[in-house]
């Protein structure tokens, strides 16, 4: 029938369960390996600043003197390039994005 060809689909949807995941009432379970945000195990960091040089968006800054590793979350594109480059393997990609903020330019600091 050339009319209402979508009937089957919409009626099945009407009486079935909606496909909605109900986030945020139901927290999202991310699949393993989903690229969300970079985490650092700062105690094993050698502050070699290789990650800083590899970062395509200059989101990272490493200070060898003061032993501070900084990230600007509003710059990070979660490309995983730093984690791949890290010689100490102290950077890792975690699932889930960092939350929304109301003011830009705040960096997150990690002290050794």
């Amino acid at each position, binding site marked *: 029938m050339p009319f209402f*060809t979508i*009937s089957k689909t*919409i009626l099945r*949807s*009407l009486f079935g369960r*909606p*496909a909605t995941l109900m986030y945020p009432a139901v927290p999202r379970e991310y699949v393993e390996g989903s690229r969300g945000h970079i985490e650092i195990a700062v105690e094993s960091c050698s502050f070699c600043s290789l990650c800083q040089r590899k970062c395509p968006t200059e989101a990272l800054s490493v200070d060898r003197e003061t032993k501070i590793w900084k990230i600007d979350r509003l710059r990070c594109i979660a490309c995983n390039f730093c984690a791949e480059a890290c010689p100490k393997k102290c950077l890792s990609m975690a699932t889930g994005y960092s939350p929304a903020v109301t003011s830009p330019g705040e960096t997150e600091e990690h002290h050794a």
Partner: protein
Amino acid sequence: MDTLTLILYVAFAPLLGGLLAGVDRRITARMQGRFGPPILQPFYDVVKLFNKENLVVRRSQTVYIIFFLAFMVFTGGIFYAGEDLLLVIFSLMLANTFLVLAAYKGSSPYSAIGAERELLQIMAYEPMVLFYVVGIYMASKTFYIETIATTQHPMLIRFLPGIFLGFLYVLTIKLRKSPFDLSTSHHGHQEIVKGITTEFTGPSLGLIEITHWYENVLLLGMVSLFFAPNLWLGAGVALAIYLLEIFIDNACARARWQFTVFSSWVVAAVLGFGNILALTLFG
């Protein structure tokens, strides 16, 4: 049918209309595989709109919108008070004209085209609406709604099946449902943005929304008239028809204006006029 129903209509039609809109949005969402908004969402929307700034292009816009609302309430009022059906039809048309005028005042190309399309829609459904009045008169021998609704006689639908179906066809236009949501639509993705309502903000838009609730309740009342004097059955059928319209809305692409106008006229000619012809010949 008296002043009581009039008061009930003026007071409760927005509530019923808003609730219907809420149910509509929920069912639509479910048909689309979504969870959908709360049933009371239309009310939240309107409350929000009244909290917004009213940006107007010309001040007369708001005046026209107030007239639109006032005439719609008047139209519904005389319908539910059981007055003259002819008056209902013509003042309904007048109310819609005010909306068109308000949109023309918006002086943006989108609202101008929206207004133009609204006029085309009026042109499309008006013949069928006129047949509706004539048919009801021929079957009941009166224009007075109160008499039609309360006198004991066989149900009108037995004489007017063609007009009933034809009226359903144009009801899709009046309820602004797909495939005939040309001038504006509830799902805003349209080539003319929001069409006729593009240039209204905040409170004005809220008034338009409330007017549509009044209008929808009036239209469903007109459907239930086919089942007079069994008005409870009529109300039930009207609700079922509303559900059917939601289904149609979700199962069709938007038509072009040519198809809307010509198909409505063909429907009016075949079903409406045919029905009247049959009544004249065999009635």
